[in-house]
Structure formats: structure tokens, C-alpha cells
């Protein structure tokens, strides 16, 4: 009698567990990238890049399928897209969120992307970018060397693959916190789709959540140096009328915000860098290295100041000067208002110290 009851109880539990609703791996579609565009008939057009697992991981053999769906909201579009496929979507591997250029031009990029912030299965560490000409084209691009679906974009963003000075990666959580910060404006890298590759060479600066300013690739590299002390930069300068390209090996950028009583407020940057020459149209070894250092320092100073003034004129602050102001002052909630008054009048000064490390293996 007892034994029968126990057996029944165990059987009952086994039955209950069988109903867990777990879906096997081969009945799931892994979404690698999500694209958001403006639809023709509805506000959103969502494109999902679905990885198709294949036994071969050879260059160019990455297989994927792209599903697009238009709807009133992102959530609705994803629900509708489910009726176009045979397997369940799994967003746990969605590492890339691409926003179409047209969408980013005339939408605010905050609450319209709420779905990504709210969903539990979208990684907080997925990367964000603006897709040119549109998100769908970026999602559909298939680089020739891609071994795993989507890897062509994920590798450069995570810097596991190429390390480009023109790429400033932005994580989802980072975007969210920049959006909410008082005193820092968000930015997004731009991904251009080409027939068999991508170009990621510049960033867009947002004001709040609206697109405000698009930087050139050179400005992006400077921005990368200023905001993240990114050491691998390249810089061109004229030495006695011949072009010489310098590359950075070490870089440290720090700054202080000075607000003297009665005087003009000032942001004082201190930059120290180590550079090497990589490509020169004339021998450099016998020139005065001190002068070369001064030349590079002057050039860096000009470029950095120009970019800072550009930000100031456009009223954006992607470096987070305002946040730093809030961090270093002690007036509580009043700080941000004060900073907004100060920022347009702030004067930038820049002390650049460059050490020239060498001319490579030849003179």
C-alpha cells in the first residue's frame, strides 16, 4: 500500500516535469541581429537575422535567413514574424541591434526602442549601431570571410577581430545609461553596408535621444582618443612639406573642469601620448626628435580642440564633461542646471605631451 503510494507520487512528479515546456535546440531559431526600420505601411519594420546551424564552419559558408515584418510596435512585429517560420525565436544570442538611418533621422531613439531595454532575454552587452542605407541591408549583408552567421559584425565590435580606431562600440546598457545621464549625450557607430563587407568608420552624436551630429572618420578617431583614451590612432602631419603618418602606441587623456570665481570657466585637458612614424615621404631619423614631437603635439591639439568646439557649438556632450562636472562639484541637484549655463561659454585648453618612440626599422 505504502509503496504503491510512493511510486504514484514519483510518477506524478515525473509527469509534471515533462510539462516544463522546454524546447529543444533544434526547434529554436537563434536570432543573431535585430534591425529596426521605418515601415512602408506601419511605423516599424523589424528584420531578424536567423542563424542556420550547419556542420561546416568554413569562410563564406555561414548560413542565415532574414525575416522582415512590419507592424505598429516591435513586439507586435516579432509576434507576427513568428508565423513566418517553423521554429521558436531565441533572442538570447542577439548581439547586434541595428537602427536604420531613415528611422534614426526622424524618430527619437529612446522610448521607441523600449522593447530592447525591457526584454529579459536581450543581452545588455549587445552592440548597437545605425545602419546605412537601412537596417535591413546591413542585416542582409554577407561578408565573404564570415565563418559563423553574424560574426562579420560581431568580431569588429567586440575587438576580438579587427581593432579599428574608427569604431567606437556602444553596448545596450551603455546606451541606456547615456540616454538617462544628465550630463552625457549618447552616440552610436554607423555601419555602412557594402555588397560583400561592412564599413564602420564614423559615429553619430545624439542630443538626448535625437540625432544631432554626424562625425567624419577622422573626427571619430579623435573622439575615440578623447572619450576612451584609445591608443591605436593614426595621424598625418607635414614635416618640411612632406607627409608623415604617425601612429599611437600609448595614450592617456585626462581633464579638469575649472570654474574660477569671476573668470571664464575652463576645461583643461592633459594628453600624453607615445607615437611612432609608420609611413614617411622623407627620412626622419636625423631630424630633431623634439621638433617632431612638438609638431605632432601641435597637430593633435588643433584637431582635438576643433572637435571639442564643434561639440560645444552643437550643444552636445558625448564625452561626459557635464557628468564629470557633477562628479566633482558638491551642490547636489543644482549642478546640472549650472553646467548647462556654463557649457556654451566654457573655454578649452589642451596640453599635449608627445614622446616620439622611433622611426620603425629604417631611418
Amino acid at each position, binding site marked *: 500500500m505504502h509503496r504503491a503510494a510512493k511510486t504514484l507520487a514519483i510518477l506524478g512528479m515525473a509527469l*509534471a*516535469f515533462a*510539462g*516544463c*515546456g*522546454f*524546447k529543444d535546440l533544434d526547434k529554436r531559431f537563434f536570432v543573431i541581429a535585430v534591425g529596426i526600420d521605418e515601415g512602408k505601411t506601419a511605423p516599424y519594420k523589424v528584420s531578424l537575422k536567423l542563424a542556420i546551424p550547419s556542420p561546416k564552419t568554413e569562410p563564406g559558408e555561414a548560413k542565415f535567413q532574414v525575416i522582415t515584418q512590419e507592424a505598429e510596435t516591435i513586439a507586435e512585429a516579432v509576434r507576427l514574424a513568428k508565423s513566418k517560420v517553423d521554429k521558436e525565436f531565441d533572442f538570447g544570442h542577439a548581439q547586434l541591434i541595428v537602427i536604420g538611418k531613415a528611422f534614426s533621422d526622424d524618430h527619437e531613439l529612446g522610448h521607441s526602442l523600449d522593447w530592447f531595454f525591457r526584454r*529579459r*532575454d536581450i*543581452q*545588455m*552587452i549587445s552592440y548597437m549601431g545605425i545602419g546605412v542605407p537601412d537596417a535591413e541591408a546591413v542585416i542582409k549583408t554577407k561578408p565573404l570571410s564570415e565563418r559563423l552567421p553574424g560574426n562579420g559584425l560581431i568580431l569588429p565590435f*567586440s575587438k*576580438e577581430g579587427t581593432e579599428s580606431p574608427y569604431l567606437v562600440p556602444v*553596448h545596450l*546598457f*551603455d546606451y*541606456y*545609461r*547615456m*540616454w*538617462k*545621464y*544628465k550630463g552625457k549625450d549618447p552616440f552610436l557607430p554607423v555601419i555602412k553596408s557594402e555588397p560583400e563587407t561592412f564599413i564602420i568608420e564614423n559615429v553619430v552624436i545624439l542630443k538626448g535621444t535625437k540625432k544631432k551630429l554626424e562625425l567624419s572618420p577622422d573626427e571619430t578617431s579623435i573622439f575615440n582618443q578623447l572619450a576612451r583614451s584609445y591608443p591605436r590612432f593614426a595621424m598625418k602631419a607635414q614635416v618640411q612639406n612632406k607627409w608623415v603618418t604617425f601612429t599611437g602606441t600609448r595614450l592617456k587623456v585626462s581633464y579638469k573642469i575649472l570654474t574660477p570665481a569671476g573668470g571664464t570657466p575652463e576645461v583643461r585637458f592633459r594628453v600624453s601620448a607615445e607615437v611612432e612614424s609608420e609611413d614617411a615621404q622623407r627620412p626622419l631619423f636625423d631630424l630633431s626628435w623634439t621638433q617632431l614631437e612638438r609638431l605632432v603635439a601641435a597637430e593633435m591639439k588643433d584637431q582635438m580642440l576643433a572637435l571639442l568646439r564643434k561639440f560645444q557649438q552643437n550643444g552636445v556632450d558625448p564625452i*561626459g564633461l557635464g*557628468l*564629470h562636472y*557633477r*562628479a*566633482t*562639484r*558638491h*551642490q*547636489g*541637484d543644482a*549642478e546640472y542646471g549650472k553646467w548647462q549655463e556654463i557649457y556654451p561659454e566654457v573655454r578649452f585648453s589642451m596640453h599635449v605631451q608627445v614622446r616620439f618612440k622611433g622611426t620603425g626599422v629604417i631611418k
Partner: protein
Amino acid sequence: MSRYFYYLFWLSLLINTIFFVPRLLMNERFNGSIMSVALGIVYGSVCAIIFVLSMNQFPGEGLPEILKRYVPDWIRVPSLLFLGGMFAIAGSLILIAFSMVTLRFLSPETNPAVMLLCYCGLGCFAACFRPSAILNINEIVLLVNFPFIFYIMYKSVTSRDIDWDSIQVLSDYALKPPNLIAFAAATYPFTGYLKLVLYNRIFKKLKIKHLWLIPLTGLLVMLSSFLSPVGLLGVDSVGEYLYTWISTADTLRMQFGFIQRVVFLFLFIYIGFSLLYITTCWNIYVNFVTDAIGKTTITVKSRKIPVQVLASLAISVITLVSGFRTSDKGMLDFVIGWQYIRLATEALLVISVVWFALLRRRQKRHA
């Protein structure tokens, strides 16, 4: 042997700096959280140390035995039942919170009923273990998971993405007067020492040593648990996250791990910790109820059933039902109310145990 005490203390420290407490602290971050955390660390450590020193006066005796010495039955029985209930609720809260987290992040397709049933079943089963067995499980689970915990903490503090400006912004609000709920939340992680009310029975000949570990580890864990969410999720937006620490863990990335999302490693560790915490809390509750009733078995229809089993079945059923009916919002409201009662109970308990210890010393001197 002292180490068993520290396992209990650290378990509570690690569990409670993840659930509820960060959310309560983040809600009040511009409103006196920092002062509350500072006071909480001091208060928690002082309470822990004087409590441990007092319990050292009673080698091999738990609170039930001590109460029997000094107070009449009509105080002893209700206070044991009440304290047991408080421990039971502490365990149930973690159980329900963790089942919600598992449902949301680990396996959203699972039936919530089955999940709660599994957790409650395990808790119910393990709560009836001998107290010494519970201490041993504590040791095993904690030692296995410590390296991973250190790894995650190290990673969160040294993350490239941590925004130190964001943390520094909070310094402006450091001098805001503390508020009660943040203070209660900040002292909660330190309450692991209270488990000595039962487990002191096992420490027969021992005085607990290295008491400086209490403030030191408490300070380190509290700081990393309070500051890394601010740095990683942003000072202005950290309050918007419901599962503060799980979202924080999700901002970390293991480049060369099997899985790149640290959050999964984190969740798997916390499955172990939560179940352990539930087991320990319910074990105390079960033993207190048995002591309060004074019998080890109850006869139902001429069959003897251990009180322990009945008690743990009762709490499991209550947890199961309330787990069904509650929601994120309901839980938080309940926890806020519960924290006040807990804070008062803790203070009362510490004061009375210190009082008993003083009595005991006087008796010894006269004897």
C-alpha cells in the same frame, strides 16, 4: 570550527546583497542611502560582534535552552514561535524572489507552479536535516562557489565599462540624513550572525575567533554590491532596473568563457546559494517550532508524525500559495513592511541575549 559561523554569516551577506537590498538602496540613492549604508555597516558589525560574544557565554546552547534558563514558559513559547516565523519568512522571501528570477532569466517556458513546487519540495525535505548536517552543506556549497563569486566581484569592480564619474556623482548625497528603510536594508545583509540562535548548540567548546572578519568582509561586500551597479548601470538610471544585480551581472562579458554572458554563471551560483539559504532558515524555524511545542512527534489518527515534518510542510504550502499569488510589486511592498519588523526584532533579540549573557556572568562569578 569558527569557520562554520562565518559560512552562515557570509551566506547571508552574499544572498542579501543581491535580492531586495540593492533595489531598496538604489531607490533612496539620492536620499540618504550612503549614510544609511555607512551606519548600517557599523550597526550590523557591532550587533554581530556583541551577539557573538554573548552567545560565547553559553557554549553548546541555542536560544531555546537559554530562554528556558531565564524566562517563564508563557514568554518562551510565543517568542520561539515568533522568531521561528521570522526565519521562515526570510527563507520564503528568498525562495519566491529566486523563483521569479529563474522564471524570468533562466527558463521562461517553465510552468511557475512546477518551479515553485520543486524549490519548496527541496526546502521542505532539507529543512528537516540535523543542524550539523546543514552546517556541512553550508561549507560545501560556499567553498565550491567562492571562486566564482570572487571572479564576478573582481570583474564587476575592474570592468572597463564602469563609470567612476557616475559613482562620484553620488558623493554629493553622502551627507543626506539616513532614512529608516535604507538603514534597515543596509543592516539586513549582516543578519547572518543571528543564525547562531540555533547553531550555537553545535559549538560546544568553542569561542568564535577572528571577529574582525565581520566588519571587514561586510564592508567589502557591501561596497561592491552598492557601488558597482551605480557605476555600470549609471547613477541616473540604476533605479529603473528591477533586478539590480542581475542586470549588473549582465553588463559583464567573459571573452574567453564557455558562455560570454556572465549573468548565467551568476544565476547558477545563486541557485545554490538561495536553496542553501532557504534550507538554513527553514531548519531554524523547524527546530524552534519543535522546541516551542516541546514534543518531537504528534499523533494524528494513531500515527506518530514528527513535528519537524509537519512544520516544514506547513511553511512549504504557505510559500507555495503566496508564491502563486504575489507579483514583483507585491513582493517589494511586503519586503518594505517586513524590514521594519525585522529591524525591531533583531534589536530586541540582541539586547535580550546580551542581558542574559550579563546575568550568566554574574551567576558564574557568584558561584
